[in-house]
């Protein structure tokens, strides 16, 4: 796997529920320790890199990390702040608008629909400058327009030299040949 990601830069993880897509992503971002072997980033084990590795990685899990009590704007700015990206209010409003959340900046997140919550969680990708994206089921509960948008965001990320591992059980419609499918079996 290490070799293939260097070469082709994107991997679509496919496999049935329970086949270990999420576990693999959690191992890759260092939340879970692998039973055997190790994960290396630019030759060094991610355990020894510690926080340095996290400056290069964005992980979006299937739990949205959206706080119901906070407004969209607060959620967005805080999630970015946690990832080390400072956004001014104007920048945050702009990225939210790009994600199709214009007009709901000041709504508490508990009033959002599931799809909107997902959009809010994913809006972090727009302001992210990390090289490796680990995305877990990012396309679930998104409408068609949002799927197209996220796909184009991932494509732009790849064109600027980034890498991505995307776990999905939906079709990922990136430009042909730019990604490799890795089938996991339980």
């Amino acid at each position, binding site marked *: 796997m290490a070799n293939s990601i260097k070469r082709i830069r994107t991997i679509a993880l496919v496999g049935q529920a329970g086949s270990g897509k999420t576990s693999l992503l959690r191992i890759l*971002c*260092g*939340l*879970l*320790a692998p039973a055997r072997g190790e994960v290396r980033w630019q030759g060094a084990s991610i355990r020894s890199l510690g*926080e*340095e590795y*996290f*400056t290069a*990685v964005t*992980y979006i*899990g*299937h*739990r*949205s*990390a*959206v*706080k*119901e*009590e*906070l407004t969209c704007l*607060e959620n967005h700015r*805080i*999630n970015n*702040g*946690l*990832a*080390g990206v*400072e956004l001014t209010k104007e920048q945050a409003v702009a990225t939210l608008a790009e994600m199709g959340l214009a007009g709901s900046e000041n709504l508490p997140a508990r009033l959002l629909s599931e799809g909107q919550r997902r959009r809010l969680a994913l809006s972090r990708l727009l302001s992210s400058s990390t090289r490796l994206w680990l995305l877990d089921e990012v396309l679930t509960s998104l409408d068609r327009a949002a799927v197209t948008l996220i796909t184009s965001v991932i494509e732009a990320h790849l064109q600027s030299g980034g890498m991505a591992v995307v776990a999905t059980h939906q079709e990922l419609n990136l430009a042909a040949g730019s990604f490799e499918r890795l089938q996991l079996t339980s």
Partner: protein
Amino acid sequence: MLTMFRWIVVRDLTLAWRRRADVLSTLFFFVIVVSLFPLGIGPESQLLRSIAPGVVWVAALLASMLSLSRVFENDYHDGTLEQMLLTPQPLFLVVLGKVLAQWLVSEVPLAVVAPLLGVQFDLGPRTLWILFISLLIGTPVLSLIGSIGAALTLGLRGGGVLIAVLILPLYVPVLIFGAGAVDASIISGNIQSNIMLLTASFLLALVFAPWATSAALRISLE
């Protein structure tokens, strides 16, 4: 580095403000427990004065247990905690930020109302002052040590009871020095030594607890 710390504190304070009921319930628990004793014992001022330090301090311990089980729980369930573990900053800063916010929201109000409650126990102004000071120095230790327990019991069913069993024994030194300082001020004994020991435990907890909590969080999220 500090901006990260600031984000965490501001975020947790905002969240606490939006969930005021949670915070107030801890405070009311403290007020009611402390007020039950004078009502139950009756107007024997000598007896009330001598039990006051212990009663107020034990009530503060229990009240802080109540709020501690919530420190990481919500962030754990909605996935924010995962993101906090992946921040490009040392994890102990995140922990320290969360503990500071928890202390400001749940513990400082206890220290502020304690002198008012002390009046029910017929305590003098100097003793009330010492009670306030001892709680102000002692409660951060409760938050710091308690955060270790909160991190260890994350995601467990019945975690609230388990956290009490794990953490209350570790609170004993704080209880002894804290109540000791107030006691000493009643019988005009040596307050200074107790306050200094309390400060020492605070500094010790400040150095070791965030580190232990970070390790516990990594284990709990695996």
